[in-house]
């Protein structure tokens, strides 16, 4: 048994504890040590995750590098980890984004200097970076867990560090009531997700009891899905539907699917840009990931039954999110609504039940993570410079800070899925995958790409172009640290747009396995022809 996966999750967890325990102080040196250690831990995690992805053989078993440690025997719970292609790419996404988020949030958690020169809350720095590492550890466990209970525990537990990240660290750009707004956002985030999680808890228990009654007292995902597929575990259709809805509700809240999305704009709007990225690019992905892994594998029948309805909801989400994004006055809320639209695409890809759709959805999770991170973090740099989140406070930034404006545009273009950039690949796959089974929904979703262009470019136009507005003059362009944040994201966006094969190779087998779990196949073309010309010069 290899301990690589445990190590991957344990390193950030240990790092979180270590970071939290570091001595506090207002001195810059102390802060720098804290940040350096946290960054080093996240880099180590990235290395481990890369080792996991490198060690994964696409042609091999469904779950690889598996390990299982007895945890709570009484309920048949093992701390089981395993990686498949989908979780590998998502773990990689997490590990890549966390150091970047840290770097981007470098000064966001410095202690607040009082007017009299003293510092308030000197543990802020330690707290922030420890919480980020804690989130990373929990997200990684969620992605890698092959035990439903373990997944559930960390799926829920990650709410707490997230909650403190949202509520405790604002972006200092809010109005006078920003504190109240922030705690409102944090509470809303927590309660919404907790409610989802508790409903799921009931479903988890229900599933366990059903399995127990049929001699399968386990939470082990491969065992359960195998038993369901072999007919050894029979869930009554009504119960299956209820359980599916229980699971799905939690994931739909987290994802977030319309109409359960209303926590996201508040959370992303009030949190720091780094935290907002963690929410939308990392934590929310656990929701969509879990739909793919748990809902489909455990409840194939119910998934098929509810699939079309979920498609409709996701379609509404796509259009609704985009329209709302167009109507926003606040940059970060705009990004949040754009994310809601994107999550619609992801969920649509999952429930279209085609390999294009699901591969697209998985890639979409990665690509949305990267591109939204780029967009949001640059927005964060912008906001911290101006001290305002209102779009109307900006204008003409490209004149004074061209690099900032340029990277912001790239982020926006990635968000609108410009071909050549990573999100295009996934968005097109999702659309094509949906279209081949549900043409009407596929066509309707395509409207989303027009609306995406509208919100992304309107935002760029309003903030960056035109004459330089008051308060913008003398705005500094991106600093080296900030460039270090943006450059890898932009590079990844472009690279994965042109050459997504490394990811698709990882993802394809896992998607095949998932599709066969729900007994779905791709529709055959009406008049099949050779897929490619493929020819060299004759």
């Amino acid at each position, binding site marked *: 048994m290899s301990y690589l996966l445990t190590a991957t999750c344990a390193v950030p967890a240990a790092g979180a504890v270590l970071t939290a325990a570091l001595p506090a102080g207002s001195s810059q040196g102390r802060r720098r040590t804290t940040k350096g250690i946290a960054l080093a831990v996240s880099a180590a995690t990235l290395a481990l995750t890369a080792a996991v992805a490198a060690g994964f053989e696409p042609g091999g078993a469904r779950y690889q590098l598996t390990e299982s440690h007895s945890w709570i025997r009484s309920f048949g719970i093992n701390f089981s980890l395993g990686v498949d292609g989908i979780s590998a790419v998502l773990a990689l996404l997490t590990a890549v984004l966390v150091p970047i988020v840290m770097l981007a949030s470098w000064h966001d958690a410095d202690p607040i200097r009082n007017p009299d020169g003293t510092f308030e809350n000197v543990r802020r720095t330690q707290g922030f970076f420890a919480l980020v590492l804690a989130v990373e550890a929990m997200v990684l466990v969620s992605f890698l867990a092959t035990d439903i209970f373990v997944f559930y525990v960390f799926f829920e537990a990650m709410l707490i560090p997230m909650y403190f990240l949202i509520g405790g660290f604002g972006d200092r750009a809010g109005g006078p009531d920003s504190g109240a707004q922030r705690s409102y956002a944090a509470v*809303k985030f927590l309660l*919404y997700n907790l409610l989802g999680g508790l409903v799921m808890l009931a479903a988890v228990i229900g599933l366990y009891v059903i399995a127990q009654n049929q001699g399968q007292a386990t939470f082990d995902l491969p065992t359960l899905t195998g038993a369901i597929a072999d007919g050894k575990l029979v869930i009554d259709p009504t119960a299956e539907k209820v359980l599916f809805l229980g699971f799905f509700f939690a994931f739909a809240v987290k994802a977030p699917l319309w*109409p359960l*999305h209303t926590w996201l704009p508040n959370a992303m709007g009030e949190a720091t840009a780094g935290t907002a990225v963690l929410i939308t690019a990392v934590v929310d992905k656990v929701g969509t990931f879990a739909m793919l892994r748990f809902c489909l594998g455990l409840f194939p029948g119910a998934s098929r039954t509810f699939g079309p309805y979920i498609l409709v909801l996701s379609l509404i989400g796509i259009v*609704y999110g985009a*329209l*709302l994004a167009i*109507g926003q006055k606040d940059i970060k809320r705009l990004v949040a609504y754009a994310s809601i639209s994107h999550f619609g695409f992801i969920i649509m890809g999952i429930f279209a039940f085609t*390999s*294009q759709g699901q*591969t697209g959805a998985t890639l979409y999770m990665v690509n949305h993570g990267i591109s939204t991170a780029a967009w949001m973090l640059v927005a964060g740099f912008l906001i911290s410079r101006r001290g305002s989140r209102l779009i109307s406070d900006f204008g*003409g930034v*490209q*004149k004074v800070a*061209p690099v900032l404006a340029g990277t912001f545009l790239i982020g926006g273009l990635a968000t609108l899925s*410009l*071909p*050549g950039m990573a999100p*295009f*690949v996934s968005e*097109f796959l999702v*659309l*094509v995958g949906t*279209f081949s089974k549900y*043409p009407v929904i596929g*066509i309707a979703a*395509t409207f989303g*790409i*027009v609306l995406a*262009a509208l919100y992304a*470019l*309107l935002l*760029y*136009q309003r903030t960056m*172009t*035109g*004459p*330089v507005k008051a308060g913008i003059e003398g705005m500094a362009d991106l600093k080296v640290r900030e460039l270090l944040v943006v450059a890898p994201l932009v590079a990844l966006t472009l690279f994965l747009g*042109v050459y*997504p*094969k490394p990811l*698709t*190779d990882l993802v*394809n087998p896992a*998607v*095949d396995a998932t599709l066969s779990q729900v007994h779905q196949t*791709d529709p055959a*073309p*009406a*008049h*099949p*022809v*050779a*897929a*490619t*010309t*493929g*020819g*060299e*010069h004759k």
Partner: protein
Amino acid sequence: MNSLIPLLVAAPLAGAALLLLGGRRLDRSGPWLGTLAAALSFAFGLALFLDMLGRSGEERALHQRLFSWIPVNGFQADVSFQLDQLSIVFVLLITGVGTLIHLYSVGYMAHDERRRRFFGYLNLFLAAMLLLVLADNYLLLYVGWEGVGLASYLLIGFWQHKPSAATAAKKAFIVNRVGDMGLSIAIMLMFTEFGSFAFGPILGSEGTAGGAQQAGEGKLTAIGLLLLLAACGKSAQVPLQSWLGDAMEGPTPVSALIHAATMVTAGVYLITRSGAIFNLAPDAQTAVVAVGAVTLLFGAIVGCAKDDIKKALAGSTMSQIGYMVLAAGLGPIGYAFAIMHLVTHGFFKAGLFLGAGSVMHGMDDEVNMRHYGALRKYMPVTFVTFGLGYLAIIGFPGLSGFFSKDKIIEAAFARGGTEGWILGLCALTGAAVTAFYMTRVMLLTFFGEKRWQPDPETGEEPHPHESPSTMTVPMIVLAIGSVFAGGLFTLNSSFLKWLEPVTGHAEGNSPLQPLTVTLLTTVCMLAGVGLAYLMYGRSPVPVTPPVGSPLTRAARRDLLQDDFNHAVLVRPGSGLTASLVYLDSKGLDGFVNGLAATIGGISGRLRRIQTGFARSYALSMFGGALLLAATTLLMRSV
């Protein structure tokens, strides 16, 4: 030679990357670097062309597969190129005209501090456009398709500090996106129909039947209409034409390259490339010709009313592309003519735009033709090259436009029946109107009295002067092309034969003799010129435009296209958005908050039970005991 094909794209792409990432160090050398990249690409294109000439007709098409782009089960998207007779025409046009315009821009943008970026964008455009015409499948074409859209967006909005430029850029992108939607749905439809979206398997090649031949007409019509939607967006055809006029906010070389010679003709390329589909979908073809015919008149009418020289030319572009689309819609009989007109139009329209740019350059960026006049004396080279382009576009016998347009009109009549007559007459009318508005431009700009206005801020009058040689040389080259290209192509039907392996060939059955058509066209042209001379040549032109007829006023407002879009799309759209924002905060969020408030309210009410009186607690216990006993008893009796 195959390996040269990727280099065609790579050269400008590398140039773009270098220029955009290179930083200030390249500010000075940037323009030349960019031009070099374009020229390099042209050289590759030329080499490939010469190589292609050396092979027989069937072996001319080259394929080069680079790598598997998106490999997903049942879905194979490759980065793979196809260079055939049609592509090479485009490659040469794009790189050739592109290089010239790069060169022109070196002079034109010499004083712009952000010129390095400008050349970066231009190179990016070249790369994307080449990708568009070299792709061997629709998805890769789509990448180029949107890539040119991006370059167009960046270049229209190049002067971002001008709100009008930023707005125009965004508008262009978004209108194009509507068209792109058509293309992407078309690709999806192809995928579900054929399991592929590569040209070869679907369209067939050189005698081998493709998947299109097996598919039902309904599906093909749908694909055709969707492709037409895409073409409408990119080529500024009705109803997605509204962005082109505004796109003139970009620097003039951009208008020349992207919004006249190359990018806007991508729609024609798409339709021609997909000929195999359209040939089997007559309804789609009818739609194409209808769009073409409407647009050619629409653009021409708009062109008549504009006082902004670039906007007048933009109307003209729209109209000329209408001709091409019309020709492409006619099927095999028209494809070659569409492409031929596209190439000749590339020459003369680029030349005209460069001329306009030269005029603006001399007139301190004045664009209002009513403030021009008598410039022929001050800018002789510009006058001559512009004049040659003018003659070419109106179809003056012997010049390029004469040959290409004439063929299209002929083919339109050859469609036969009522349809043929309507199309033919539209095309003829268009020719007359073209002559009218181009003569108007010519007269207002170069003839008559000088009507220069002092700068409202500095009070200085412009001092028109000839442009530097980096600008005039490209104009001269393009003028030569405008004069001779048409004749060269028609000679021995060389162009037709060249393209035949790709487009196929068909003989039309025109109700009119070719000579009759030529005569009619010439007469129409002369009538247009004459009318324009009567209106603008004989009497001095007022500096402020007269009110004009309702049609003129509508034409000035682009035939109310923006008003229409505003009323039908923008206003309801923003209303919808605003109401959704309200709904989200008050409805959905309100529900959530309301739920919390309700629980709080219940809690507040329920709290009052806790009165603090021990006896009331005892009462609740007593009641509870009674209830407990009663229900236990009741449970038993039930």
